[in-house]
């Protein structure tokens, strides 16, 4: 009887292991180069890296950071009918895992959950750009010398 139970348990466990494949979160395939540190590292540590980056940007003013939401969107955005899905959709790449893990995140109460066309402020201004501080100071100097 014990043997039968053990066999049933064993089969049961194998069956569960097979079913787990279907129950695990379906992670959308990303584009671009893979993370050098590996997926496992980023799955475990992305929040710490992002928290470090957000404090650097907001408090220190350093905007060229290693982990920002905009950089996540570059590769991980899921599109539906040609449009990137927002956090409202359960297809959003953040939700695919966070829904599964029952972890509620509030990033998107303030941040947009889709990539933005506005990429102007991701690059340093060149003095040729009229709204750069350098060009502005030049205009003021020219005005003062008149």
């Amino acid at each position: 009887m014990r043997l039968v139970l053990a066999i049933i348990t064993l089969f049961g466990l194998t069956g569960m292991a097979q079913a787990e494949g279907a129950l695990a979160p379906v992670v959308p395939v990303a584009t671009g180069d893979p993370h050098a540190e590996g997926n496992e590292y980023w799955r475990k540590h992305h929040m710490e890296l992002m928290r470090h980056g957000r404090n650097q940007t907001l408090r220190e003013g350093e905007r060229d950071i290693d982990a920002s939401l905009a950089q996540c969107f570059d590769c991980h955005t899921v599109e539906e009918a040609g449009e990137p899905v927002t956090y409202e959709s359960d297809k959003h790449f953040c939700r695919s895992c966070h829904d599964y893990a029952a972890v509620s995140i509030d990033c998107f109460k303030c941040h947009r959950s889709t990539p933005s066309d506005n990429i102007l402020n991701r690059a340093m201004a060149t003095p040729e750009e009229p709204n750069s501080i350098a060009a502005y100071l030049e205009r003021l100097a020219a005005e003062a010398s008149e």
Partner: protein
Amino acid sequence: MSKCAELTRRDILKSGAAVTTLSLASGVTLMAFGGSDADAAGADAGKRWGLLIDASKCDANCTDCVTACKTENGWDAHGDHASPETSSAWIRKVTLKDRQTGRKVSAPVMCQHCDTPPCVDVCPTGASMKRADGIVLVDKHICIGCRYCMMACPFKARSFVHEPVHDQSVNAPRGMGTVEACTLCVHRIDKGRIPACVESCEAAGHSAILFGDLKDPDSPISKALEAYPSIALRDDLGLNPAVRYQNL
């Protein structure tokens, strides 16, 4: 920015982040490196950004600075606010009238980026903060929406977001339950650009808002402040704001 320091920080972050989660000692080291690097890039303690607003150049009927601020930072967009009472105002046009003489004067009022900001003094969480270069900001990551800062601000510069917001501008993340205000377009300044209100005022042909570094004695704003009379709003409070007014 020193490339060496950048590499050091990145290397530490990439190779040592796993260790820092386990050991407090490495965590301290990591923060020390992050701090020294931030001095090299980002907010510069050797600068203090400010504005000089010449009310005589400001057209009472022009609201281009307000519109530019809305467009740049995405507040008051998409009809986020159910009523005018709950709408945000990062910058607003204020018209003053002298009752005796009838003289009217108009000027924009935004966060005055005080040297000793009362909003920072009263914040219970440290969300209300002043950067090394003098820009006063709200860290919405830790803002609990208590609105003490709104009560403390003598300039009515801060707003509370009452309703959920969607599709925010990438320039200025903002959300329900947090306080917000003029950031002096910090996202632009960090990338070497002038604030949106300054740009729009110049484009409108008024050039009523002068932008510059108050700590640099040779900057146009410092020279103008030295040469001509100007006032700080509520100067009696001794807050030493970075926004000054002329001909008010």
